[in-house]
């Protein structure tokens, strides 16, 4: 899931010109889980804006609970059909979702003006109803087979691939004493699993080309093509 937090209301209001008619859009999946743009927060945002004198022409969280705003076909249908009248009146769309969701609204409205209502902070695991943790930095070249499934690109503040820096203190990272050192976590886990030999091997430098932006993916039921500045990489899911 994409973790998001709402921008401060004053910043959001500063995006909107006097007299601008705004339609507020939320997301019923990730932003709902983050309480940054679910049904309650979207309705409330409309109210908060109205209270501050913004001309809000409508709001919507397209689709049932669990539906992602970034699913373009659904978002387009809801905005263009169910909310046609209000959407047509809108000068702009305030989107309470991640950056993908913001772009989905651009596509769903054929290029309308959008305002981001959230900061998108990371992709994470929904550990519990009130805890979202980041475990993957989406690097495009996964090496966690060699680190016991724990990602040093994400859990180590310096993204070290071959073991810890010298800075950990009492098991905590030198950067943040609230956080455990990612490399000590990897070590403890592999020790428990009896697989310490996994981190004895040398890991070479990452291919950052796979991580450079922008990237895209073309998929079919049997094949996928990952496009980045590293080139086009086609993989099959068949024997």
């Amino acid at each position, binding site marked *: 899931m994409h973790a998001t937090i709402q921008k401060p209301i004053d910043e959001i209001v500063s995006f909107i010109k006097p007299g601008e008619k705004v339609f507020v859009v939320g997301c019923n999946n990730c932003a709902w889980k983050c309480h940054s743009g679910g049904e309650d927060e979207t309705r409330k945002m409309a109210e908060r804006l109205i209270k501050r004198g913004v001309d809000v022409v409508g709001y919507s969280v397209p689709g049932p609970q669990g539906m992602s705003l970034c699913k373009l076909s659904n978002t387009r249908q809801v905005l263009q059909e169910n909310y046609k009248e209000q959407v047509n009146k809108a000068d702009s769309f305030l989107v309470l979702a991640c950056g993908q969701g913001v772009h989905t609204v651009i596509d769903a409205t054929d290029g309308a003006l959008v305002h981001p209502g959230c900061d998108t902070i990371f992709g994470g695991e929904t550990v519990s109803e009130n805890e979202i943790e980041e475990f993957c930095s989406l690097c495009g070249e996964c090496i966690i087979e060699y680190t016991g499934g724990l990602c040093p690109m994400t859990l180590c503040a310096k993204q*070290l691939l071959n*073991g810890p820096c010298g800075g*950990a203190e009492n098991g905590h990272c030198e950067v943040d004493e609230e956080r455990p050192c990612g490399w000590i976590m990897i070590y403890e886990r592999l020790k428990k699993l009896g697989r310490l030999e996994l981190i004895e091997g*040398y890991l070479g430098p990452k291919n950052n080309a796979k991580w450079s932006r922008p990237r895209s993916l073309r998929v079919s039921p049997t094949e996928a093509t990952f496009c980045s500045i590293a080139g086009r990489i086609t993989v099959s899911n068949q024997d």
Partner: protein
Amino acid sequence: MKLTDLFKEDIFVVTGEVGPIKGALSRDKSKVPQCVKEAELLKDHVHAVNVTDNQSAVMRLGSMFASVGLKNRGIEPIYQLTCRDRNRIALQSDLLTAYSFGIDNVLLLTGDHIQLGDHKEAKPVFDLDSVQLIKMARKLNEGYDLTGNKLENPIDMALGAVVNPNFEPLELQLLKMKKKVDAGAEFFQTQAVYDEGVLERFMNLASRFNRPIQLGVVVLKSPQMGNFMNKNVSGISVPQAWIDEIGSVDKADRKKKAAEMMGRFIGKVKHMVQGVHIMPLGWSDIVPKILEYAEIEAKQAA
């Protein structure tokens, strides 16, 4: 002069350390920067002087320029190079340049995180880690760049690395040390150690790598500094007995006391290591006294 040549001759290698100034070199030649003054004090007593690379992520004069400056004054520099601020292109290019300027020794490190420094919003680079950096430097020594392209002239530098004997779990630190050895590290300097037992336990396990190890010591200047390091400097722990002892004398006598304490400790443990790396943090003037207390003959055969 490569440090590795000294180790080969079984010389107990003594090194010091200076941090480049926060600012540029003045065009007014009469203004000698503090780091040069400190290095001059070390000159006749140590084999070489480390020059830190934007230490603690605080932006300063470049370690390469400062290293060259020392070299020109007849002081052997150990050029420190970290992964924090440079990608693999810059790291390689800087090593080629440093060698071209006459620098023979390089200490290859990960680097403190940007969060510890004075530009907290900068982009951390860490394109390579220290193991990959060492391997990269070895390739440059062998005449090839990281992607295997042949160099017109290879470099020929002694490759140093760091290790932290205080690290818990030590087994994990040793695992990384082994990777550094395999990657091409030729000598090690340790993080500051104040405890004989910690050093002994570490040396018993690390000697199997057959690489010279210099004990690192940071001069303890005051009880406040001890408490500060325990609280804020990652990977160093100062025992209470040290803090009490330096606190037992008046401020005016602290330099003398510090020299005595550091020297006594080094003298006691020197048989375990192949050299000592003294980080005086500005108190370069007491280094000769420290060595005297430790009964280390200044710059033997240097």
